[in-house]
């Protein structure tokens, strides 16, 4: 056993623990913050709880000419792709010009680089098996918003894993199938079958059990978890370094499940198990419904959502665009293909609008769910043909309480996307001095 453990390892382990919902106070961190940030933080804390964050990933970029408004400020007109959002226009904050430079790969691999950097703003280690990245913004947010929730964070999507095969140019498939990362080496897998999501979210104790039986069940569950935790602890000293890292993942996960043993389950009526074999459009709506339900029942306050995996080759034949999406995204400036991409993007935004409809229709007591939620939508690349990570398409929706003032189009040319995440983290009262590879200071002007 090596006696030296680098500080990086310690930090990441700690980050992992906290991301998974185990609270460890880090008072020194806040004291490192500049005063301006601390005031932001206290302002957020003064606001009414709860806040929620939802990160929304679209694969293969956006047809930018039909996305970016020409006007800046409050008097902007919705470009064609964003037309389905007309009813929500005053709840949108469009940001243009942001860059996500850590997404740039070594050589080829822009989709792996871009997908993995979407929420981490960290550069992925180019390897098919030695995966190294960084903690994602949703997991930092979960440290603050996740405590006490049945699910500190949820990872959802509409495409499963790759199950064999190669992904992007020498990058492990982990980089294109996950956007949430608990730590540099720990991607958090997503659920992509609405029926399983339903079971995970809403299946409680067996009906008809008495309180006594449920309590007895909890006690044996705890004993079982304690038993395997003790085994893992005993094993720890007999493993090499790399194996111990795997065991750490196990320990963290078991503790996280154990800490939630006494949750009484959702007192959430009206949930209905989705049907089997849904067509894509129904599948997407069904998943959006489940997200609304999960947030309104307060099962979780942090969600990351992948409309598709990085490099998705889904066919949109059902809206009249047959052909593989990733292949089409290399449009070579062919106007016909660009029109197809625009149709796909418009459809994607239509379904995003469907989610906003659900959130705005649902009350959380004081207002609509959407008022206190922030949705943050972007992609792995800007334009699919050029693979650029500059001038990223970034769309925010909601207010996050008072942290965001929507109804505008703002430009931040060349500013890192990571700085937006710093603003969001400050907005939920969990300010960080830095984020990812290039986040150094929050964006200004989002709230005023």
């Amino acid at each position, binding site marked *: 056993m090596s006696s030296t453990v680098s500080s990086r390892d310690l930090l990441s382990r700690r980050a992992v623990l906290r991301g998974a919902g185990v609270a460890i106070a880090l008072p020194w961190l806040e004291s490192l913050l500049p005063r301006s940030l601390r005031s932001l933080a206290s302002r957020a804390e003064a606001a009414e709880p709860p806040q929620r964050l939802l990160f929304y990933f679209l694969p293969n970029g956006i047809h930018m000419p039909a996305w970016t408004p020409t006007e800046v400020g409050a008097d902007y007109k919705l470009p064609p792709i964003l037309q389905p959002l007309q009813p929500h226009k005053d709840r949108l904050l469009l940001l243009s010009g942001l860059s996500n430079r850590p997404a740039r790969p070594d050589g080829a691999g822009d989709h792996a680089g871009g997908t993995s950097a979407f929420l981490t703003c960290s550069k992925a280690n180019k390897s098919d098996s030695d995966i190294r990245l960084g903690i994602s913004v949703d997991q930092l947010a979960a440290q603050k918003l996740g405590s006490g929730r049945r699910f500190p964070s949820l990872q959802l999507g509409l495409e499963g894993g790759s199950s064999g095969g190669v992904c992007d140019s020498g990058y492990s498939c982990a980089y294109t199938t996950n956007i949430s990362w608990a730590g540099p080496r720990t991607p958090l897998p997503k659920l992509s079958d609405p029926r399983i999501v339903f079971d995970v979210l809403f299946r409680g104790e067996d009906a008809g059990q008495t309180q006594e039986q449920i309590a007895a069940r909890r006690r044996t569950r705890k004993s079982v978890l304690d038993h395997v935790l003790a085994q893992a602890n005993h094993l720890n000293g007999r493993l*090499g370094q790399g194996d111990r890292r795997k065991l750490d993942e196990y320990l963290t996960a078991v503790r996280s499940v154990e800490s939630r043993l006494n949750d009484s389950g959702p007192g959430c009526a009206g949930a209905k198990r989705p049907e089997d074999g849904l067509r894509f459009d129904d599948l997407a709506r069904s998943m959006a419904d489940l997200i609304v339900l999960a947030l309104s029942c307060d099962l979780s306050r942090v969600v990351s959502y992948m409309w598709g995996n990085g490099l998705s080759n889904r066919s949109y034949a059902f809206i009249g665009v047959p052909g593989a999406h990733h292949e089409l995204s290399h449009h070579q400036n*062919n106007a016909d293909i660009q029109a197809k991409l625009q149709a796909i993007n418009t459809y994607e935004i239509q379904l995003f609008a469907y989610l906003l409809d659900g959130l705005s229709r649902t009350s959380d007591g004081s207002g609509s769910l959407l008022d206190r939620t922030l949705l943050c939508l972007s992609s792995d690349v800007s334009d699919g043909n050029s693979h650029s990570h500059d001038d990223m398409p970034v769309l925010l929706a909601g207010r996050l309480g008072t942290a965001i003032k929507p109804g505008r189009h703002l430009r931040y040319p060349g500013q890192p996307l990571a700085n937006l995440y710093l603003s969001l983290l400050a907005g939920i009262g969990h300010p960080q001095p830095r984020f990812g590879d290039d986040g150094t200071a929050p964006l200004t002007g989002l709230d005023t």
Partner: protein
Amino acid sequence: MLKLSTRILRRKSGWSTALAGILLLGCDAGPQLADPGVVTMRRLSRGEYDRSVRDVLGIEDAPSKNFPPDDTGHGFDNLGDVLSLSPLHIQMYQRAAEEIAAEVTRPDGAPLSRELATSELSHSEYVVQRGAEIVFLTGTSAVAAITLPRDGTYRIRLQAYGEQAGPDPVQMGVAFDTRSDAVVTVPATVPTNYEVRIADLAGLHLLRISFLNDFYDPGKRLDRNLVLRALRVEGPLELERPNPLRRRLYVCTPPADDAAGQRDCASQILRRTGRLLYRRPLSSEELDGLLALFDQGQSEDENGSFDAGLRPPLEALLLSPHFLFRVEIDDEPGSAKPHPLTAHELATRLSYFLWSSGPDDELLDLADRGDLLQEETLTAQIRRMLADPRAAALIDRFAAQWLLLQQIDRAEPDAGQFPGFTPSLRRSLAAETRRFVADFFPAAAPRAIGQGLPLPELLSARFTYGNAEVAAHYGLKVAAGASEVRLPLDGTTRRGLLTHGSLLTAESYPTRTSPVRRGKWVLEQLLCTPPPPPPPNVIGDFGQPGSGGTLRQRLEAHRQKPVCASCHSLMDPIGLSLEGFDAIGRARTTDEGLPVDTTGQLLDGRRFADAAELAGLLAEDARLPRCAAEKLFTYAIGRPPGEPDHGRLDALVAAYEAGDKTVYALIEALARSEAFRNRRAAAASDDTTAHPASLNLRGMP
């Protein structure tokens, strides 16, 4: 105790491996082992989890279907570095463990089988408790709440008798809630079993037992009373069935009313099951811990049942790191010195390589005795295991991932352009390929083939297997029905796997063929010489139909650019020779009205006229067995081969050439190799480089 025994085994294993080395090689048998590379501890992948619980407990319905997907690296889903574990995993494992434990301990019979103690019944003071019995003194009732798990008919067993008096025997009423009584006549004067069947809906009910015909004559001192001794509810009867899984698990019969005997039986069951799930004997501490869980489970159960006791320790076994991970111990975790695997670790590597499942009793017995570390025993076991039906995992997991056979499930040919591509055709084409590939692997190969066909025939075979749908799709005039039959391909340009409809479809785009993807598949999967990725900003779709000329002409224009030529001159000739098949794999002679040209030339100058000739050239390509060896190495050992492994791959290919050029020969040589049988801990210096750089075979001939 465990630690002690592994140490003994390890010492023994070191000795016998060294000895085997002397016997085998006759030289270079010093104690210094070559660096086996660092293999990170592997979590069971979904396919491995399912097969493990199937083989140990008989669970057939793939519990992992609800687990999060496993990430892949180097094309495989069983690499420790990439198999991460999140709280969601544990949640799903916990759920699966509880469901499995409930299923395997479920008694023969119905979902509900509940004994109600007479003391659990509520009643008036006219019913009195007398020891275990209650006596109904007047015409009154006693009730108990019970939850019926499902709608259906329930059997209520009552042990009762009467203190008889007067003209009639005792009459007892049994009912749920306020329904009218089922009347039972109780003429007995000693405890006797009676039975009533009542249908009702799932949910909470009040079970009511009544004494219906009280009789009292103080003058003659006659008093008729009902006495109830025991009460049990079972059902629904519609769901009653025997449970073979429980019979398989219970290697002993738990004696009734004998706590020590029950604990002893639990200990036998857990020792045996735990050994199969942990793939090694349990230590006494481990067994004690499991028995403590048994005690708790039993005491928490209202009936103190044996089955309820057994569930928590079974759940613990299924949630344990010793089950979920394939643990390999480094006695000196700080030292990067190579050491042999213990016999049990070797048994585990073998079984997950060949079966994607845990070792069976025979393998564990040999490991317990240390015999598995002997060369002859190991070889005999490899051969036994390859002949076992469980070795079909090599087809369904190894070959399926190697050759990307699951891609066909996700292919989306445009329905407008290819209305004939029905779900049924998709299944038939996938079945064709599964059946054909099986011929090259030992377990499922017909007896006549034995160890499987020579690998080159994977590409050059003049036959395939298909049902009538496949035959029609290929334009073959053969009598075929709903199941696969051998289809001769003479007289066509179809040869081997390359021209399978499943592959041709999976490596096409929805609306057209993709010579580039087809060519890339051959280079990456079959020859392990992936083309370099395209330079930025030039990847593109030069193949949109309607932009003039055939796809070949458009690609040729693309190749005029020097920056593109370097790769496309590798991929395109291969892919273009397959242009004789459309985007769903049908033979064709024209593309957009222009004749298809399938001729070509490989970089080394060899020419071919069509797909059949190309398949012949590729079949004899030296990169094919080397690539198969590289893929098997990655899959079996859990890391890709690095620079230091060149010689190991050479040795595998030499064994292949010396044998019958079969995958079998590669597998056997690999399972016997020292890279497979040794390990070492990661040194601090391994953390930054993590692994030997992935082998770059691009420069290979």
